[in-house]
């Protein structure tokens, strides 16, 4: 049996979580998932400004902080902290923790190969809209193929203490230690599916150990010290989801089911570079306090293609707010919205979208929100987006004047004019997997 713990569900997750996973009980592998769809583009921009950046900067200091404990207890770290610059990440890790052996997985970055791939005749089209890649080509900032568990397992096979990948799938981080330790084969679909589903359960950190859980949420113990998840994996591909005993939170079939359903598409066909996992085969059993056993998982062959994660610049946006107070707070906010729209129109400005929400009335759920006929206050929230930066800049001047020249009772303008942000949007396509050749480099 091996214990695989996940200490980060995204870049920006709780900094103390991985340290507590190491300190509060036994683990064999510490996996850290830093990358979301938009993270790659943020990292690409950082790399453009400084060629030594472009990776998750939280990671090297964390490894430095844990280095002695990792070494003395033989805990291996697997992370997709490399972002768009795994080599620079490895360099920074070695600087923070000189005694560790680091393995880097290269080959996911296809940013410089896009035209070559197009010239080979691969018709890359967006998986959601069907648009050809030519429609976004000038704005592309980053392009990476999602890679699976086998290159990461190969990196673990070198005896490295720390494995750094770029755009590996979230689930591969958890599956890789199983492939490495149990010698699972690339066509062992049921086993690979089980490891993939274990990865899906823990990839969002505490979201399977009581975080964001609706069931009896007020009774979830000691959330200030919530335990991040641990998979106790066996060679037969059954596993138990648990946490350190002394940590807070709760592991129960309710918390695990909620996470299993999170960001899921067709449950019978959860497609990864390693296999196609069938979520309708999962059997759960509560086998003890904070222990859920998972078994019965079936899987099918991996697809012949890999998914590309592409991010591109798609204009600008700004979101501004004002607060209107009782009485008639909603009516005042609605009147203010009409005034702003009329003023923007009279200035001759056009936008791809103007979107208004009334925070406190219906901002989250729109027509599905419960009625709230006489709220004590409402936040007017107007957002605009478009390709013309000047129009977006001008919008940012149109809210604060309403405090004096609009409906009564406006406040909440203390932050000043709203910020203008560049929109870095996400686009995905498929390419034949033979086009992606990964390579493991060991540095120490």
């Amino acid at each position, binding site marked *: 049996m091996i214990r695989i713990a996940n200490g980060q569900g995204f870049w920006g997750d709780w900094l103390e979580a991985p340290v507590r996973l190491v300190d509060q009980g036994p683990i064999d592998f510490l996996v850290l998932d830093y990358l979301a769809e938009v993270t790659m583009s943020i990292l690409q921009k950082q790399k453009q400004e400084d060629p030594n950046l472009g990776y998750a900067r939280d990671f090297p200091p964390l490894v430095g902080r844990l280095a002695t404990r990792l070494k003395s207890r033989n805990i291996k770290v697997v992370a997709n902290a490399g972002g768009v610059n795994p080599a620079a990440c490895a360099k920074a890790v070695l600087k923070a923790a000189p005694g560790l052996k680091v393995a880097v997985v290269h080959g996911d970055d296809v940013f410089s190969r896009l035209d070559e791939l197009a010239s080979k005749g691969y018709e890359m089209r967006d998986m959601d809209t069907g648009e050809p890649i030519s429609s976004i080509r000038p704005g592309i900032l980053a392009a990476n193929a999602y890679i699976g568990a086998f290159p990461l397992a190969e990196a673990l096979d070198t005896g490295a203490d720390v494995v750094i990948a770029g755009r590996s799938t979230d689930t591969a981080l958890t599956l890789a230690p199983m492939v490495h330790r149990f010698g699972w084969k690339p066509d062992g679909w049921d086993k690979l599916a089980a490891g993939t589903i274990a990865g899906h359960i823990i990839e969002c950190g505490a979201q399977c150990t009581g975080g964001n859980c*609706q069931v009896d949420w007020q009774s979830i113990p000691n959330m200030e010290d919530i335990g991040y998840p641990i998979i106790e994996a066996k060679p037969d591909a059954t596993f138990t989801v648990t946490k350190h005993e002394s940590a807070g939170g709760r592991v129960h079939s309710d918390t695990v089911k909620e996470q299993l359903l999170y960001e899921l598409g067709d*449950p019978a066909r959860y497609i990864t570079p390693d296999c196609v996992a069938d979520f309708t085969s999962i059997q759960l059993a509560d086998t003890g306090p904070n222990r859920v056993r998972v078994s019965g998982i079936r899987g099918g062959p991996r697809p012949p293609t890999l998914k590309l994660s592409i991010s591109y610049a*798609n204009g600008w946006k700004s979101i501004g707010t004002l607060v209107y107070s009782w009485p008639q707070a909603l009516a005042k906010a609605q009147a203010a919205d009409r005034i702003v729209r009329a003023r923007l129109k009279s200035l001759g400005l056009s936008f791809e979208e103007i979107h208004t929400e009334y925070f406190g009335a219906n*901002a989250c759920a729109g027509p599905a929100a419960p009625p709230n006929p006489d709220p004590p206050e409402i936040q007017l929230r107007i957002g605009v987006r478009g390709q013309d930066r000047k129009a977006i800049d001008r919008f940012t001047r149109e809210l604060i004047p309403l405090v004096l020249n609009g409906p009564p009772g406006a406040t909440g303008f203390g932050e000043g004019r709203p910020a203008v942000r560049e929109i870095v949007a996400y686009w995905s396509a498929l390419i034949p997997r033979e086009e992606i050749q990964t390579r493991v480099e060991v540095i120490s």
Partner: protein
Amino acid sequence: MKKPLGEIAHTRSGDKGDTSNIGVIALKPEYYPVILREVTPERVKSFFGDLVKGKVERFELPNLHALNLLLHEALGGGGTVSLRVDAQGKTYGAALLRMEIDVD
């Protein structure tokens, strides 16, 4: 007898691009057939009104006594493009708990 869905189910929701997914899980196994009968794509689409511009798809996970709902074109463009406060549909699952269902 009419009851809100939240009395027999819990939910979790999230995003994939401009699609929001809502997992609907029976609080007890015996509630699953009621959820299966009552939480139809048509009812869900009508409950969310013009928030959902596209279709609603439904998948069944009888092993978990759960449904997975996909609400297409429901996040104002999704991801970084969306101007919505809840650009990732994190609250849609909780909103659905208010939907009235027939439990007889």
